[in-house]
């Protein structure tokens, strides 16, 4: 059973449907017991970091997610959910993250040429830089996925498992043991995205 953490941020309809489409058993929940009983956890997220991080803390689910991740349970953060895995974010101020992956979240504007549009929105190619993480075992180098973001994960070189080129190589996915994250939206990335979710669903604890 894969549990999607429901802490009142964003629309979980597509994420849930996409997991059903790859044959996964899935539950959308705000219940700590259900999260503890699940085999795997997905932390979604859209919108602003500060607001989402506050809602996650207020729900009390942040400590459950951290505990379960530290026990070795596979955890996948998606988009803002990935950004929250890091130590901190500099989106409108400085905000604390879950601290499961070393690094910080910074504005894309700091690293790309001024003539490129922000947010980085649309389909971009994934580059694996040599070795392919098991999350991408059904993918080919250069497969496209759908991005929408204005901030990116920085100072996390040792955890990066995929990048996307947008005037600079932006962090597209990270992994640190059982903790994984995608900056893009696998649930909106067609066949390629579904195969990433399938690979996550097949991850052994």
């Amino acid at each position, binding site marked *: 059973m894969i549990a999607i953490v429901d802490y009142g941020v964003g*629309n979980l*309809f*597509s994420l849930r*449907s*996409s997991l*059903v*489409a790859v044959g996964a058993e899935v539950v959308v929940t705000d219940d700590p017991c259900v999260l503890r009983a699940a085999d795997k956890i997905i932390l979604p997220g*859209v*919108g*602003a970091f500060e607001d989402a991080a506050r809602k996650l803390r207020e729900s009390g689910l942040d400590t459950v997610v951290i505990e379960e991740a530290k026990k070795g349970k596979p955890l996948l953060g998606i988009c803002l959910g990935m950004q929250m895995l890091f130590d901190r974010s500099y989106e409108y101020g400085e905000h604390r993250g879950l601290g499961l992956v070393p690094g910080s979240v910074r504005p894309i504007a700091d690293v790309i040429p001024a003539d490129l*549009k*922000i*947010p*980085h*929105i*649309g*389909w*971009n*190619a994934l580059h694996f830089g040599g070795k392919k993480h098991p999350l991408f075992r059904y993918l080919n180098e250069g497969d*496209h996925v*759908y*991005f*929408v973001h204005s901030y990116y994960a920085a100072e996390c070189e040792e955890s990066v498992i995929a990048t996307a*080129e*947008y005037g600079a190589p932006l962090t597209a996915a990270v992994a640190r043991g059982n903790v994984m994250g995608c900056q893009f939206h696998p*649930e*909106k*990335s*067609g066949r390629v*995205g*579904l195969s990433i979710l399938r690979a996550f669903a097949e991850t052994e604890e």
Partner: protein
Amino acid sequence: MITKRIIPCLDVKNGRVVKGVNFEGLNDVSGPVELAKFYSDCGADELVFYDITASAEGRALFTDILTEVASEIFIPLTVGGGINSLSDFDRVLKCGADKVSVNSGAIRNRDLVREAAKRYGDQCVVLSVDVKRVNGVFRVFAKGGRENTGMEAIEWIRRCVGEGAGEVVVNSIDTDGVKNGFDLPMLKAVCDAVSVPVIASGGAGSIRHFVDLFSTLPQVDAGLAASIFHFREVAIEELKQELRAHDIPVRLG
């Protein structure tokens, strides 16, 4: 590198997809769910659903269809038509829309773009504008292109982007349905005015028109069309192959 997006637009009325020439004389084309699945399979990068029903029954039918599409199609979905308030945003987002397109609603309610962007994020708010030249000036038209608002289009677009619209769909009434190519001068004027993604709409009749669009105006992010895709006059796979042959970045397969 980010790819150019090809976006089929599905106008939905009473649960069916329709498309008219110059917004009039609507023809029934096909079931929205079958069409959406077909497009997703052949490489569409995103889908736009326009609800052109006015009745409450039509609205309910539309959200049922949207839910069904969103549970089977895993590419970005934009929904427009009849979006006048935050509760309309809420209604379609709950059914699986990723972005919401506002047109006449933003003209009637001048706070809508700002309030929606604040609540759902800029990336969720798409400004759609129907533009027509009147005595050489770009004017914003409302009510499906039937009513001249008298507003100057570039100023209106700049204002809405300033308030949080994350993308702009520019639909040229002058070229819509004529199949003689996109309205490049109008699109250039918009691209020069704003820095958010611009989606070209109105006028595509052949593959050549998309090649011209992205070659002439590389700052345009996406091309949107309806009837030429519905009637298979242009196949999306073939269109993308041709764009790639012209060194225009696209997502294949």
